[in-house]
């Protein structure tokens, strides 16, 4: 037993090194700038997916509102960038919406440190509030998921409606510099790519540490039997709030990195659809594995780009079928293919179960 454990750890270690090594030393040298920029964007998505793995995979909280947090992080960053791009003028969209002066809540975003802080604080606070009003009232499972979906819609409507303050449907776009450097110069973009990889790595380490800790075990226990954990003396509400907030912060940070590379943010990210897609990334890759979820985000988005570029008129079929196949046959996501042998045979068993022995239940 001990031996195979070591083996497994060694194997994963090799895998981690390969993964992050190739992000650092391989892709930047073989990909064109455009593709590297895409990859950087996908890496920011990978961060969202890791957050989802923490909340959903480990704790059983399926949030269909990650787009909100991603969006808030992105808007915080975009507000700073927009102010920097506008110089002394009012941002263009405010002007054509008839505003005459900068709204008070925009003002502090002139400061980069403040904006960076807000990238974390705003999602964190909102998640804590949402967590407070739902988990405390023991709203969980599907209820929570669908409430978070409704919230997404609320945010969408509000951001679209407050055009003068948010840029409306257009969102915030047209940036030029960051700290005075050209945002879209080759060097800046390369640097941002490396920062993204680095952040991904840090958040991966942090997440791994979390799930290995006692805290992580309690999360799994909550996923299993939330009611029971109370009788062991834990208050699951607090645990859930914290992990949900952490996953929100992951999304917020990802949003900020996204804006830096995409050069725009719009409320469409608050839409119901992007939030569902985020969950799908994690599911496809493997919701109970941080790196799995991250890889899911990379693969799904690569596939989406590849398919939509090559089959612009019918790519949705492929994507739809891909989702169905993975969910149907790989409930643990694609990582289960790469895991130890025994997991692989587990998968085979699962397939077998679903093909033949439908009534087998393990409870």
């Amino acid at each position, binding site marked *: 037993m001990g031996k195979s454990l070591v083996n497994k750890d060694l194997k994963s270690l090799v895998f981690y090194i390969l993964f992050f090594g190739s992000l650092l030393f391989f892709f930047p040298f073989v990909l064109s700038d455009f593709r590297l920029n895409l990859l950087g964007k996908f890496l920011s998505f990978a961060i969202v997916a890791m957050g989802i793995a923490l909340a959903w995979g480990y704790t059983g909280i399926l949030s269909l509102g990650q787009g909100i947090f991603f969006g808030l992080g992105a808007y915080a960053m975009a507000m700073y960038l927009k102010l920097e791009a506008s110089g002394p003028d009012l941002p263009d969209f405010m002007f054509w919406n008839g505003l005459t002066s900068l709204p008070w809540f925009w003002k502090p975003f002139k400061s980069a440190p403040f904006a960076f802080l807000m990238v974390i604080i705003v999602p964190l606070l909102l998640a804590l509030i949402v967590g407070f009003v739902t988990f405390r009232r023991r709203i969980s499972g599907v209820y929570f998921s669908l409430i978070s979906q409704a919230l997404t819609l609320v945010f969408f409507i509000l951001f679209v409606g407050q055009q003068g303050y948010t840029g409306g449907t257009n969102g915030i776009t047209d940036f030029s510099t960051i700290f005075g450097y050209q945002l879209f110069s080759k060097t800046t973009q390369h640097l941002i790519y490396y920062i993204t990889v680095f952040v991904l790595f840090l958040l991966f380490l942090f997440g791994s540490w979390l799930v290995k800790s006692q*805290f992580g075990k309690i999360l799994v226990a909550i996923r299993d039997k939330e009611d*029971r954990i109370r009788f062991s003396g834990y208050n699951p509400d607090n645990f859930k709030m914290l992990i949900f907030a952490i996953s929100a912060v992951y999304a917020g940070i990802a949003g900020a990195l996204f804006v830096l590379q995409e050069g725009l943010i719009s409320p469409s990210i608050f839409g119901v659809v992007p939030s569902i897609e985020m969950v799908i990334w994690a599911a496809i890759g493997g919701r109970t594995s941080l790196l799995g979820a991250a890889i899911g985000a990379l693969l799904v988005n690569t596939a989406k780009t590849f398919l939509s570029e090559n089959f612009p008129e019918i790519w949705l079929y492929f994507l739809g079928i891909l989702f169905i196949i993975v969910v149907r046959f790989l409930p643990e996501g694609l990582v289960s293919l790469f895991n130890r042998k025994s997991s692989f045979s587990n998968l085979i068993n699962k397939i077998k179960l679903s093909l033949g022995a439908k009534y087998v239940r393990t409870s």
Partner: protein
Amino acid sequence: MSELVKHILYIEDLTVSFDGFKALDGLNFYVEINELRVVIGPNGAGKSTLLDVICGKTRPEKGEVLFYEKIDLKKLKEHEIARLGIGRKFQTPSIYEDLTVLENLTISYPKKKTVFSALFFKLSPMDKEKIEEMLHFVGLIDKRHLKAGLLSHGEKQWLEIAMILIQNPKLVLLDEPVAGMSAKEREKTVSLLKKIAPGRSMVVIEHDMEFVKNIAQRVTVLHQGKVLCEGNIERIQNDPKVQEVYLGGYKVATN
């Protein structure tokens, strides 16, 4: 704790009703510190409901539920009650199926249970030893790395008992701990309970009279949400009302 406190559990006039049906009906129930109390009674008498109220799962309609005669349990949440030192085993085994046996015990271990302490929690070698010992005791040492969901019914029962005991509670509530256990395990449970009994109070619900006889000091019989009769096992066995509503012709062999 003041010298005068005699009862760890002080319940008076407790009433619980569900849509008009009174599961507990003005129940008075007192358990002394360090007492092992057995509660029996017909199916549906309200035994599990009583435990539900004590550990905060069910809120009563009226009545007093005091811990050490002064802490009002009605006002507390489940985890707060658990932290006071009240551990409960459920009627059907309730464990974390996706965690290993070992992890099930580790998270039940009585250390600070706030969010932040959990982040930095580490078991000391002594704690580990205690857990190992407990695993040995309940015969799950070989299965400690197995996912708990894969245990058989009886093994799950054992695991849950171990989880309660490792919490080292002042008051242990056990709902039918030997249901589904084989004779051997029943005997083991008896000795286990006897071993852990000193220094703590216990309320045990059981239908297995053999088992009851082996552990009981004082037995309470509930019926229709009220106490029907209370006393030692002989007295209970010979009470005609108890025989009528509960025992039937059953007689525990005297050995």
